């Protein structure tokens, strides 16, 4: 019997008879409790699901961390134009959010991640990488400092097992708060203007990677200037109950700026243009990689990874000190392949020899070309490269080999993304 179903007067009747030597046994103790396994549901929906379903014109859905999310709501081209020319609002609630708190929270995180956190102020965020003992990347994410002894780590995949394992000996509390915290991502050059109109004061004075509490229509919302679009953008963290109201308010206030809702496909495209690798796609977490080549070191994935080798101890530190001297075996590079229409890219060739794999590929409207993130052998980076691709027309497919070159700069990287104060107009 659960507390909900027990009648109050029923429990009040049971009084202890002090004269009775026979111990009274509560029969409820022996009742079989119907147990609902906590993780029985594997198909989740975000708090915004019903609201977003109403926006969908395509019925194209995809799966993200077990959640059903829209892939494309209206048209990817329209959504893209809104992102680069105005602003888009997307539901990023499926991201994994872990709260780390306690007296040793700072010490714990200093050992967990590779970079030095001593300069991280309260209400600021920082990108972090964390590795296992052999120096292979487990994941990367954004770490928020919410208070002196309170942090939030936002990652693509869950790392709860590793994080609790690493907590041995530290006075910390580690909680997965993913399901209790909704996140709306507002990206685009007019995102600051949308927020101002929604009622956030002084939004332009929020520096990149800074965060603050704001009051939007009476709802407490934690606003951070973060995002993976390579442009100006904000992320809004709110209670799940508030999230639909927040969404409606932003949509109505942003209407005049051309704010549109967007789906998962646009997030992937934006991050590809910004050349940001994603866990599970461009690299596999070291524990998830079956083939050793699927896991990567930070030096392979980022050209200047945030690693403080002079920190006395952090996970992977011993291995990374060894690796730091040697050039990495492969590198994750952004490639552009000349072709006027979208092509599905797969293998990187040097001459006829395969030297790497395109892990994420897509057609960049900004460049009007196919671009890809690819893990390529370092030795082949100096020579000429080509990409194999497949183009589909009607029922026939055509195998292509396209000349490719390495992009020195990401396809989309706007100075206004890191401008301070943030621009309120175009």
């Amino acid at each position, binding site marked *: 019997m659960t507390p909900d179903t027990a009648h109050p007067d029923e429990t009040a009747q049971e009084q202890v008879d002090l004269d009775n030597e026979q111990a009274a046994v509560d029969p409820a103790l022996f009742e079989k409790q119907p147990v609902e396994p906590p993780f029985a549901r594997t198909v989740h929906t975000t708090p915004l699901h019903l609201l977003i379903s109403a926006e969908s014109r395509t019925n194209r859905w995809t799966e993200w961390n077990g959640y059903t999310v829209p892939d494309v709501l209206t048209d990817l081209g329209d959504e893209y134009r809104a992102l680069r020319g105005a602003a888009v609002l997307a539901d990023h609630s499926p991201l994994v959010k872990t709260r780390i708190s306690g007296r*040793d929270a700072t010490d714990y995180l200093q050992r*967990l991640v590779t970079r030095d956190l001593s300069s991280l102020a309260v209400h600021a965020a920082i990108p972090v990488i964390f590795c296992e*003992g052999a120096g292979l990347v487990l994941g990367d994410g954004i770490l928020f400092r919410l208070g002196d002894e309170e942090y939030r780590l936002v990652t693509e995949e869950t790392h709860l097992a590793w994080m609790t394992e690493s907590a*041995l*000996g*530290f006075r910390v509390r580690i909680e997965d708060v993913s399901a209790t915290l909704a996140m709306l991502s507002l990206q685009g050059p007019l995102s600051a203007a949308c927020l101002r109109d929604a009622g956030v004061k002084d939004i332009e004075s929020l520096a990149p990677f800074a965060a603050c509490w704001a009051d939007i229509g009476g709802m407490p919302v934690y606003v951070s200037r973060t995002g993976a679009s390579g442009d100006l953008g904000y992320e809004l963290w709110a209670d799940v109950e508030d999230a639909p109201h927040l969404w409606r308010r932003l949509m109505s206030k942003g209407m005049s700026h051309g704010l549109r809702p967007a789906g998962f496909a646009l997030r992937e495209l934006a991050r590809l243009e910004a050349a940001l690798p994603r866990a599970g796609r461009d690299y596999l977490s070291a524990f998830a990689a079956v083939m050793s080549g699927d896991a990567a070191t930070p030096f392979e994935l980022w050209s200047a990874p945030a690693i403080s080798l002079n920190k*006395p101890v952090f*996970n992977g530190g*011993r291995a990374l000190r060894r690796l730091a001297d040697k050039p990495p075996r492969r590198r994750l590079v952004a490639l552009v392949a000349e072709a006027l229409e979208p092509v599905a890219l797969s293998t990187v060739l040097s001459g006829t020899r395969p030297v790497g794999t395109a892990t994420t590929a897509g057609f960049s409207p900004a460049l009007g070309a196919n671009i890809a993130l690819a893990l390529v052998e370092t030795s082949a980076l100096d020579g000429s490269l080509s990409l194999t691709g497949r183009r589909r027309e009607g029922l026939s497919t055509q195998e292509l080999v396209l000349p490719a070159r390495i992009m020195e700069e990401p396809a989309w990287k706007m100075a206004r993304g890191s401008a301070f104060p943030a621009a309120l107009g175009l």
Partner: protein
Amino acid sequence: MSWDSEGFDAIVVGGGHNGLVAAARLAGEGKRVLVAEAGPRAGGAAVTSEITPGYSVSAVAHLLEGFPRRIERKLKLARHGLRYAVRNVATVALDRDGKHLLLPRTRKEFAVFREALPKDAEAYREYVAHRRALAGLVAPLLGERPPELADPDALRRFLRRSVWRAMLKGRGTMQNLLRTLPESIGDRLDAEFESPLLKGALAFDATLGGGEGPYAPGTSFRAVLREAMRLQGQGACLPAGGMGALADALVAAIAASGGKIHLDTEVSRILVEEGRVNGIVLSGGVEIRAPLVLSAISPGVTMLELVGAHHVETDDIRELRNFSPRGTAAKINLALDRLPQFTGLAPELHGARLLIAPSLAELDETSHAAQNGDLPLEPVMELLLPSFADPSLAPEGQHVISIIVHNIPHEIEGGWETHREALVQRVIRTLGGYAPEIADAMIAGEILMPHDIERKYGLAGGDWHQGDIRLDGLLVSRPAPGYSRYETPLPGLWLCGAGSHPGGGVTGLPGWVAAGAALERGDA
């Protein structure tokens, strides 16, 4: 206390026999060494204690089986007072009907053995020769530093050397080794012998101190390992004055080289500065600095409690968390007012190592009972009457008996307090079947369950071997892959206790090899 100003080159945490051996080796090389022992005396599980005034006995370990001669000679332990009451103690398998079996050491004894077991005698000779050949192959590995697991060349050299050594021993050795590695001692003995008593005794030796029964895979190799340990020493020896005499000699050797031993000195943490070890902090808050710290206590306690997870990576800790020794042997020491007469046992054999393990089936049964958390009905055990050869241990005409009860559960439902008496009763009843007057002769006694051994003598889990000595717990995997070369991931901190290769038993080898490796590295 102004210990700080003394300046030490090395500190050994834990004054068990391995810690003492390591300290003695370092001190012998001219290093200024401090041994910090939490208890009131040094020696760990190799100590002599009084059962009741006038009656002394080796409290936990009672025989010196594999203490290498070379350590004894290098540390000049004889000069520091180590004498033996008996060398090469005989082993007798006790029989319920009085037809006891002396495991032969000499030609003459073999002739008697053949008379008693005409069918098994030849097989026994062959079995011993095989075991010895394999032990000769394994023995050198026990006294050396395991190869670096991360270095494929070192590993290849190591394997190639081992294979060559096997080839040199003759064609059959390699096949024999490959056959012995995975097999169970029970199956092997069943195939070769008829006498249940002989099989019981041989299997007892192979499984003593481990949690498994005689039919568990890999137990055959443990018999080889045990033999290899014995080859290091000179058979089972009984130090005059009990095992404490070894600890005393080691203490004297350390003192003679200028080393210091502080008793009742509890280390509360190991000092880590700038990512390396820099000394220890005592429970009173006193800091003692030294560039080298060797820990002779359990690897888990060293890393998790003394160092703390803050100073090492998660992977380093994860490996050790699974390493938790669980003792499955109890020790009973009794003071007797007379020499107990074992029915049918020749008077001169009363000083031998006496085994009560009547058959494989009974040994198997006790191990099953122990695994199910039950007390064995008829315990199997090893008895020793040290006062028979060493009268100094008890008043004249009186004796002490030291009993290792094998295969008892590590934990028991309801706790040991309620079952302690039951175990003693069962041991005495079983003993009474061999020496009827033992119950009347008892005047005092003590019983040490695994957790008593842990509490009184500091052995983690009360496990004599600090983790089963078996193939997957030796060399590169003892105590965990990252720690197998005595060095910990923390610069300046080394392990030198029985948790490291080659493991438990009073061998001094972990301490000796670890100290040698640290000296070679030049950490001190």
